[in-house]
Each structure stands twice: as C-alpha cells, then as structure tokens.
C-alpha cells in the first residue's frame, strides 16, 4: 500500500480529479495549503507593510492506493496538474503501513479502495 501527497496549483484541482476518475481512483482528501518553491513567492504590499518571499496558495491532495494503482495514480495526478509553467507542484510517495475502514473494521488492501 502506498500513500501519495501531491501539492498542486489550486486551479488544476478539477483536471486532476477528472484524471484520477479516469483511472478509477475516487477516494481522496483535499486541503487548502500555503507554499512556495524555488521562486520564493511574490511581493505583497499593505500600506507601510511590504512582504517579500511570501507564501502562495496551493492545494494538497492525499490519496491512499494499492501497489498496482500507484503508477497510474501518479501519472494521472501529473497529467492533470501539469501546465509546463513554474509552480506546477510536486508529488511525494510514501509506504503505507496500515489502512482501516472505520465503518466496517476492514483492514489492509481491502480497506484502501
């Protein structure tokens, strides 16, 4: 089992979710996050207060998958999120030790999808 965390541009979320649906990956957790990459954000000005290297709005996607779904899922996320411009984001893959479906108590690969 693997756990995928991806940080993408907020306005690519719809494309990513559509791409995941094509791969029959429907279970997902999405959150609003702040972040920046190597460009260190943009300047913000509030009267006498100037912020440089600010954080930008991003969206974080989290998906748990069985090993057979890992590559299609990563590819789908990348396909949906890629614009070719700076700021497209990153995908991280972790080993997942356990997964539990709360309602039924099922565990392991059965509980993932």
């Amino acid at each position, binding site marked *: 089992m693997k756990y995928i965390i991806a940080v993408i541009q907020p306005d690519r979320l719809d494309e990513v979710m559509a791409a995941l649906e094509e791969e029959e990956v429907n279970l997902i957790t999405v959150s609003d996050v702040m972040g920046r990459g190597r460009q260190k954000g943009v300047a*913000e*000005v*509030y*009267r*006498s*207060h100037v*912020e440089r290297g600010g954080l930008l709005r991003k969206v974080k996607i989290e998906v748990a998958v069985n090993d057979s779904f890992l590559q299609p899922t990563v590819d789908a996320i990348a396909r949906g999120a890629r614009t070719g411009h700076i700021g497209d984001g990153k995908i991280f893959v972790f080993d997942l030790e356990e997964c539990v479906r709360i309602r039924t108590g099922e565990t392991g690969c059965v509980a993932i999808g």
Partner: protein
Amino acid sequence: MAQIDTGDTAWMIVATALVMLMTPGLAFFYGGLVRRKNVLSVMMQCFMLLGVMSIQWVLCGYTLAFGPDQGGFIGDFSWAALTGVGAEPNADYAGTIPHTLFMLFQMMFAVLTPALIIGAFAERMKFSAFVLFSVLWATIVYDPMAHWVWGVGGWLRELGALDFAGGTVVHINAGMAALAAALVIGKRKGYPDISPPHNLPFAILGAALLWFGWFGFNAGSALGANGLSVSAFLTTQLGAASAAVAWAVVEWVKGKRPTALGTISGAVAGLVAITPASGFVTPLGALGIGALAGLVCYLAVVIVKGKLGYDDSLDAFGVHGVGGMLGALLTGFWATTVINPAGADGVFHGNGKLLLWQFVALVVCAAYSFVLSFGLLKLIDKVVGLRVTEEKEGIGLDLTQHSESAYTLVG
C-alpha cells in the same frame, strides 16, 4: 417660539442614523486590518463605545460640550441627564429641529471619536483599560474641545476658526490621542514583522460604510435640509473621490501596483481632510483638498511612519491626525463666503487671516489632545495597566480578553 421644520428634522434624523453607522463601519474597517486572532476585540471595542458613550453623553457629555458656557472653556451641568433638553428647538444651535435631535446627532460624533483611537493601540490593549481610558478621555478631552469649537461661547468658535463638521474635535483630537497611545503603549510584539490584514474585504466594506455615513457627518452638520447641506454632500463626495484616486496613482507611479487597501485608505484620508472644509469650499476646492490629502497621508503612512519607527497599528494618526491637520489648514486656503456667507474667505479668496486662526486652532487642539491623552494613558497604566501580557498578546485578544473565537475553522 422656534418652529420645527419637518424637512430639516427628517433629514437630521437620517443624518444621525448615518453617523451612527460609521462606528460599526469603523469596526469592519479596523477589524479587517488586524490579524484573525484580534478581529473580535476591535469590533467589541467599537460596540462597547456605542453603549458606554451613549450613556456618558446623556448623563454629562452633552452638557459639558454644549451647555451654558463657563469662561469659554467648558459647559456647565445645567443639562446633565438631559434636564431642559426636549422637543423645543434650541435657537443657538439648530433652530428648526428638536433640541433632543441636535443632542442625538452630536452623540454619534461623541461615540465615533474615541473609536478612531482604537487604530493606534489595536491588538495589545487591555479591555478594562480601554473602557476606562475612553470614558475619561471623552470627558476631559473631547467634551471641552467640542465646547471650544462648537459650544456657544466656546473660545475657538469666538476666535473665528472654521470647522464645519469636526476636523479638529474629531480627527485632530483622535489622531493626536492615537499618537500618544502608540508612544505610551509601545510596539506590538514582533513589529514591524506583523502578519498582513486578515480580511481586506471587511476593510473595504468598512470603508464603504464610513463613506456612506460621512454624508450624515458632513452634510448633516448643516443642521438642515438646504443648499448648504447639499453643497457639503458634494464636497464630501469629491474629497473622497479625488483622494482615493490620488493615493492609487501615487502607488502606481512609485513603481508598485495600485492596491485596494491604498485606494480605500485614500478615500478615508480625503473624507477626513474635507470634514472641516465641507461647508465652506467649492467643488473644485474639494477636489484639490482630496488630492493633497491622498498624497500627504500616503507619505505619512507609508514613508514617514516607517522611518520614525512607532507602531500606530492601523494608521489612526497617519490618516486622522495628519489628514485632519491638513484639512484644517487647507480650509484656510480654499474657504469662500460665496459658498457659505456664515463662514469666511481663505487665502485663495483674498484673506490671509483665516489661515492664522486655522493654525491656532490646529496647534491648540493638537497640543491639548496629545498632552492630556499622554497623561491619562500614563495614569491608567499605573492604576490598571494598559497592555496585556506578552503571552496573551501572542494568543490573541479575542480569546484572552473576550473568551471568543471569531472563525470556527475546524468542525
């Protein structure tokens, strides 16, 4: 026996309500500019003033400000608890509307003025100290100054200084008290690295309500529904408009983007500056006053404050103090008896004396406000303590002073 004019009375009732709306409007303006953890504290301070100042005004504030004169300095207690203040018009102040209505209109000014000072000490003042300071300040600073400028027998009124709607009594007064407060209470922890405004849409909403209410503030100061009130309405709109554009243009020209916060700050600065001039200047004069207010307040807030290093959190001094002083002086240039025969002519209409009286009024009001505010704050600091602890400042005033959280973020 004076006759009540229904048109004047209807307008003044509305104007009173418009000025009342400025205090909650200020709550949104200031509230949007502070960090999320302090938004309720700012709004609570505004609403508490609506309560406390209304009571102070009817019990003693009104009579001290507008009551029978004592040596040009203060009113007496004849009208305490509104004794003798009824439906019958007071011919000295507003001969065509009920006396009670005049008192009510003035009440809304008395509520709003201490609220302006909140901008200087936001995010770090103890609530108990705030209430104590506001009530005492209103009684020893606002009430006497209102008497000097507006009271029958008031010495600044007698001198010939012009202040149509309260540039001195409200804006210079609150602005200098704000400066004193910023200096006495000190900088916020971590200043100047403080998070930016947490809700600019709130600030914009607040500025809109302030602009709307200001029509009551300025046009209502004509105390009647007539040509003068409409003239003041027009100059108010033009002062705000040209100042908003001026601030945005200055930002643009300085190589940065024009910002929403800058544009609304410009509008407020213009409204402040046009306040003393509103019933005395032409529409073109208003455009000039607004443009200068936008430029000068921009410099005060964005350039000078940073260089001097004091923490006037929401620019109460930079906008109300500086804008009020500028407006008082510019009234001395642009005033014309063509617009208001009961006023005077300024420098641009061949009379240099008015500018002198404006300058005297400015200096005296600014000094009185600063000195007494400073002293009062030091005294309250000794007795009650002005500032919350560093720990509480970190957690935020909403939770520590009011046991509340503005936004439920989870669940």
